[in-house]
């Protein structure tokens, strides 16, 4: 056994995990290629990168949820092939997902032992074991508490306890601080350090650079599906990390003349929103968009963009503050009334909010516009009108579809999105809310959609653009604001913003907000 041969070496030298040449592709997209990572035992190793950089796919490979197309995985010196999470669990790898897999109505005990009842039963033995683990690592969890009553930080600790209970020595955490407030983040990091001291190896995926720098021993940067750097926190500062993450080459902004006018079309004043338990989702939001202006909101997902969009479209009536559309206060208006007055909406999740998947394309033309021509005539629907207009949209926006009676579900994402853009533009809106308008869309469709938005801007449209794609933000926006934890923290001019500043503001590495105009 090669274990004995290596006895003379420092035991720590056997890396906990070694990934060499990992590659994975999905139809149409290369998620990972040439990934090389060495994770030392008994350390906290951070994997940083933007959304879509390929971190999650990589972790799924490591946990057995996906199989890599190429490359090798070695755990504690042994090459392994993982075909399911059970394989990973068997070799001591545990994963804490970003979206917790917990049953609210069950106790901590029940959630932890489910599926692992043979370890210590489901009664007092298990209870004691859980208490033991909780005490050992300072989790402060009572096995008989209902998960529903626990705060987010505690739930996360339950997920960690789940993997520890099953004997994990290597723990992967996917964006663990995405849902925590600062105090909970500190508590989590204390737990992680405690785990490290007890000999566990922790891998932690994040894009929050300040946090990564404070707790990690090693950092690997992933960009566009591959590993680009491997550094130690002492060697870099946040700005440099940000630069590595977003790449020092930024897309050059549009060189067209400005079309921004003086006329304010959307004004948001003192907007605030709390969720059902009182946790703030939007804080002190103030901005205005003029006719002919595209305001881009940059930010890492989960910082309030969805809430902002849903509030402006009218789906979050419990928000406080004022929203003015073309000088009229619309804060109390229903979604329908807002849309009728001229607010177009390209939703982030087109399948859930933008389309009736099992309905033909021409019926989807009506969706969102079912009170206005050409879809209606008085109180009646106007199928011929809707069909004709659908045909027009299909050709004007280059929607590739066999026909207008094709079910929406059958179209590709890009064509669905082009159709939605065409539909929303067709009602001649004065304000367009575009949330990730080119997500999941092929390059050709993306360029087309950008072209349509720019043309509409020239004609006086005001656009609120939410995006995680820096190309898109910089290329389209007249002004960029950054949202972080529900607050607008920075304003930039796309003509002169640097990647470091943008990245820092998005990730909170830079506490100072700069304004350049």
């Amino acid at each position, binding site marked *: 056994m090669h274990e004995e041969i290596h006895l003379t070496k420092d035991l720590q030298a056997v890396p906990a995990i070694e990934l060499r040449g990992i590659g994975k592709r999905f139809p149409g997209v290369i998620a990972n290629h040439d990934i090389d990572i060495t994770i030392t035992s008994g350390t906290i190793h951070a994997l940083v990168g933007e959304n879509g950089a390929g971190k999650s796919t990589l972790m799924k490979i490591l946990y057995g949820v996906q199989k890599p197309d190429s490359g090798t995985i070695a755990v504690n010196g042994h090459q392994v092939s993982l075909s399911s999470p059970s394989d990973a669990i068997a070799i001591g790898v545990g994963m804490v997902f970003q979206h917790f897999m917990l049953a609210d109505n069950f106790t901590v005990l029940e959630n932890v032992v489910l599926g692992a009842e043979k370890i210590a039963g489901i009664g007092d033995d298990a209870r004691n074991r859980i208490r033991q683990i909780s005490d050992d690592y300072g989790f402060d969890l009572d096995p008989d508490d209902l998960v529903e009553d626990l705060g987010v930080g505690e739930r996360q600790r339950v997920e960690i306890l789940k993997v520890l209970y099953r004997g994990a020595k290597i723990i992967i955490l996917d964006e663990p601080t995405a849902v925590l407030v600062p105090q909970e983040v500190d508590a989590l990091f204390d737990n992680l350090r405690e785990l490290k001291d007890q000999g566990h190896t922790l891998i932690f995926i994040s894009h929050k650079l300040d946090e990564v720098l404070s707790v990690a021993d090693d950092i690997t940067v992933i960009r566009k599906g591959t590993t680009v750097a491997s550094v130690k926190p002492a060697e870099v500062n946040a700005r440099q990390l940000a630069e590595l993450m977003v790449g020092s080459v930024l897309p050059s902004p549009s060189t067209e003349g400005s079309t921004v006018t003086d006329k304010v079309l959307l004004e948001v004043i003192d907007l605030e929103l709390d969720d059902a338990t009182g946790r703030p989702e939007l804080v002190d939001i103030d901005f205005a968009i003029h006719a002919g202006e595209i305001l881009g909101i940059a930010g890492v997902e989960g910082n309030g963009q969805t809430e902002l969009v849903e509030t402006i479209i009218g789906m979050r009536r419990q928000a406080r503050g004022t929203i003015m559309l073309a000088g009229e206060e619309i804060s109390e208006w229903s979604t*329908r009334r807002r*849309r009728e007055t001229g607010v177009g909406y390209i939703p982030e999740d087109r399948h*859930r909010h933008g389309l009736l998947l*099992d309905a033909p394309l021409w019926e989807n033309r*009506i969706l969102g516009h079912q009170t206005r021509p050409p879809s209606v005539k008085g*109180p009646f*629907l106007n199928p011929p009108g809707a069909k004709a207009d659908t045909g027009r949209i299909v050709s004007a926006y280059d929607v590739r579809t*066999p*026909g207008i009676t094709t079910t929406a579900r059958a179209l*590709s994402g890009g064509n669905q999105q082009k159709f939605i853009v065409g539909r929303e533009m067709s009602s001649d809106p004065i304000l367009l809310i575009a949330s990730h308008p080119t997500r999941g869309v092929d390059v050709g469709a993306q360029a087309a959609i950008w072209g349509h938005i720019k043309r509409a801007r020239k004609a006086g449209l005001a656009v609120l653009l939410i995006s995680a794609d820096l190309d898109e933000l910089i290329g389209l926006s007249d002004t960029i604001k950054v949202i972080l934890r529900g607050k607008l923290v920075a304003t930039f001019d796309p003509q002169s913003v640097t990647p470091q500043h943008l990245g820092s503001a998005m990730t909170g590495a830079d506490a100072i907000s700069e304004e350049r105009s």
Partner: protein
Amino acid sequence: MSRWMRLGLPVAAVVLALVFSGVVATLVLLFTGDDVVGFWRVLFTWPSERDLVDIINMTAILYLSGAAAAIGFRMNLFNIGVEGQYRLAGLFAGAFAAQGLLPGKLNVAAAILVAMAVGALWAGIAGVLRVWRGVSEVISTIMLNAIAGSLIGFLLVKWGESTGNARNTKMMPEDSWTGFFRLFPDVSDGAYHLSLLAPLVGIAFFILVYYTRFGFDLRAAGASESAAVSSGVSVKKMIVVSMLLSGAVAGLIGVPMMFSEAHQYGSAFQTGLGFTGIAVALLGRNHPMGIAFGALIFAFLGQQANLLNILAGVSPDIVNMTQGIIVLSVVIAFEVIRRLATRIEQRQVATQLDAERQGDTALKGASA
């Protein structure tokens, strides 16, 4: 998806289900040693003229019942309370008509409105409970059915009069009696005049669901609540309005028979039609034409079933059982076919677009 596929697949599902149910019924009969051949012979005998009349009337009634249930189903609301709604509505309509407050046919029209209002109200309770307190309309409508039963008993005691063992509401004045459309010279009765309500409701249903803004909102909310909300639909309002409409149509179920035949509410009032209506709606896929087809099938089967005992020595309940099997197999068949259709269509679109893309690259290559 092509028009033919959109129409053809549901039809295929129904045909498959019918065949399957027929097979099951045959197997059951073989198992119990009954006269299988006789059973099928009776089922396929062309009905007598008397029976045809009954079938037509029952089709109309079941159509109303199915439409009532279908309106709710469109919104994913299960109005199991059609039974209680139509019985209560019948009682109130009968009692109202008996008062003779208005002359002649005006009385009938007013009574119809009363029936619709009572049905709507009774269903509305469930709708409000659902929207306001989150009470499942399945349980609340079932409870309301039972409450309606007791309430009817109580009101009949108060308002009605006894004839022998039966309690009925008072007889309506004769000028409020509706008659029959004579269909055959040898048959004294015919189709109830008010069975015309069925096609009227059908047309209204069709126009409402497919050609009005409300109908679009209804279908959208039933298909994808999230998309509907984003498009401006108020789901709570839709739930209440749907239940009200469903109940209003339910109220009409007992009306044709009562005004043409019994002229009062009571022991002659046919019960159980609410539940059959649910089956009809499911069979007809909640579509105005489909429900007509389903109502016809169930009415036909129900009528032929009466003859089974006499002519083949088979218990008519086999037909009831088969009706249930038809419903179950139809919904299963629809699920299976739906999944199949989605996959076929996606493949179709993919191949077509691939071809287009090839054509494009070829062009690009040519021009490069």
